[in-house]
């Protein structure tokens, strides 16, 4: 366990020192500011309320969950695997007294933590902006719903990241992984629209599953079905990627 902890601390340190983590924070901030400016513009220009208090957080989430959050999850997953394969820095870690499974698990956990921190940062930021500009309409229940929505959004983004980890262990170059990941994302999104009756089996259709958790009467069966499908995807991606990582020669 001590070596796993060491590997996890190392992965988190690397994430912190890379510029991508900073860029993710800056972009999250920019997105929230621009979003709030748009809402204010609509309110002042047309007299329409636009989005008030916690609604603003949901608005930010609905946009970020399909753009910024998956994008950074993909980039971090690529960096963590393809980046280290290509720079040959993976060898340095692999030749230490730690099993490949622990290295793999530490990397995947670090990616998960990155996604969680990104979601937490965005939720706090959007709540603060909502409070400052439309604080009069903010309720405790609304804040709880925001936390829940951001919290459950972790699953689909994390599963997507696991899919990218699998790709990173199949394809050689990080650029190929990035393009295949983005292309697959767009294709699956398109397929979800074209064949909506089958969209339930596409991972990309789960990005807005947080809406299910906000319904006045909770659709438990649907939530459970979608959760199990995501879990299935996650297990396949995790196991497949580990199998390839373990067999990889450096």
């Amino acid at each position: 366990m001590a070596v796993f902890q060491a590997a996890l601390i190392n992965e988190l340190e690397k994430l912190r020192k890379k510029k991508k983590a900073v860029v993710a924070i800056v972009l999250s901030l920019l997105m929230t500011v621009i979003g709030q400016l748009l809402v204010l513009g609509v309110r002042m220009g047309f007299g329409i309320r636009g989005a008030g208090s916690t609604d603003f957080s949901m608005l930010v989430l609905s946009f970020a969950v399909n753009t910024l959050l998956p994008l950074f999850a993909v980039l971090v997953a690529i960096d963590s695997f393809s980046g280290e394969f290509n720079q040959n820095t993976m060898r340095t870690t692999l030749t230490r007294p730690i099993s490949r499974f622990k290295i793999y698990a530490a990397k995947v956990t670090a990616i998960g933590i990155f996604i969680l921190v990104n979601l937490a940062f965005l939720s706090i930021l959007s709540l603060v902006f909502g409070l400052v500009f439309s604080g009069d309409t903010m309720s405790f229940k609304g804040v709880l719903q925001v936390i829940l929505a951001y919290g459950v959004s972790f699953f689909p983004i994390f599963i997507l990241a696991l899919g990218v980890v699998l790709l990173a262990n199949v394809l050689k170059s990080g650029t190929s992984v990035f393009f295949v990941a983005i292309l697959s994302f767009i294709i699956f999104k398109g397929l979800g629209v074209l064949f909506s009756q089958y969209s339930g089996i596409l991972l990309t259709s789960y990005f807005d599953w947080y809406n299910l958790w906000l319904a006045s009467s909770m659709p438990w069966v649907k939530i459970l079905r979608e959760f199990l499908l995501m879990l299935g995807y996650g297990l396949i991606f995790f196991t497949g990627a580990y199998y390839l990582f373990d067999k990889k020669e450096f």
Partner: protein
Amino acid sequence: MEKVIEMQNLTKLFKNGRGISDLTLDIYQGEIFGFLGPNGAGKTTAMKIMTGLMRPDRGDVKLFGYSIQEEYEKAMANVGCIIEIPEAYPYLTAYENLKQLARFYSEVDNKRIDEVLELTGMLRYKNEKPKRFSLGMKQRLGIAAAILSRPKLLILDEPLNGLDVEGMIQIRKLILNLAEQEQTTFFISSHLIHDVELTCNKIGVIYNGMLLNVQTTEDILKNYATLENYFVSEVERNGRVPSSINQRA
């Protein structure tokens, strides 16, 4: 004396026909083993298998009695290594790079990091990032990383690669000191045959993936004027002599 490395019928063949075949070798504590062979003979392949970076098609390697394939963590607990060009994380400083590795060993503290940086002449670059380092500086940092945990076995693939004369002498002294004072065992591959002669006390020649001969440096030098002559003779007996060696001999 304790057997540190046990190689049993180690075989790994690539699609291009190169690789290693039936390598069997024992290295004992305190030995400085020089692994010689022309380019593509299989030196790095053998070292990659020894450190778990590759899997053999057949055979096994045991380090300190533990199989590298079955008990990796135990086998590598007392091993330091450099395989090919040691790469460091370019966005971390030299110190942070070593700190990353130090976390895997409970006995390595910040003082030890400074100590290995000093030993390898890298202390003044402690807070610099390796992206601006020369090949020699990267090599020194790689050596610092390899000796960080005070390993009982050091597997070094071309450890003098990119070093200037001063650096070569410094690292050679370091190897000899560690072997003498701490009974560290070394498994070194190098093209710098003169340095191998000055450093190693046991020599193995690999050619076309097969181990031709293993002898002590002392015994070799009883029959040959230099290690280079021995190497050329061994390789010649088995077929081909690399052109550069031919010209010098």
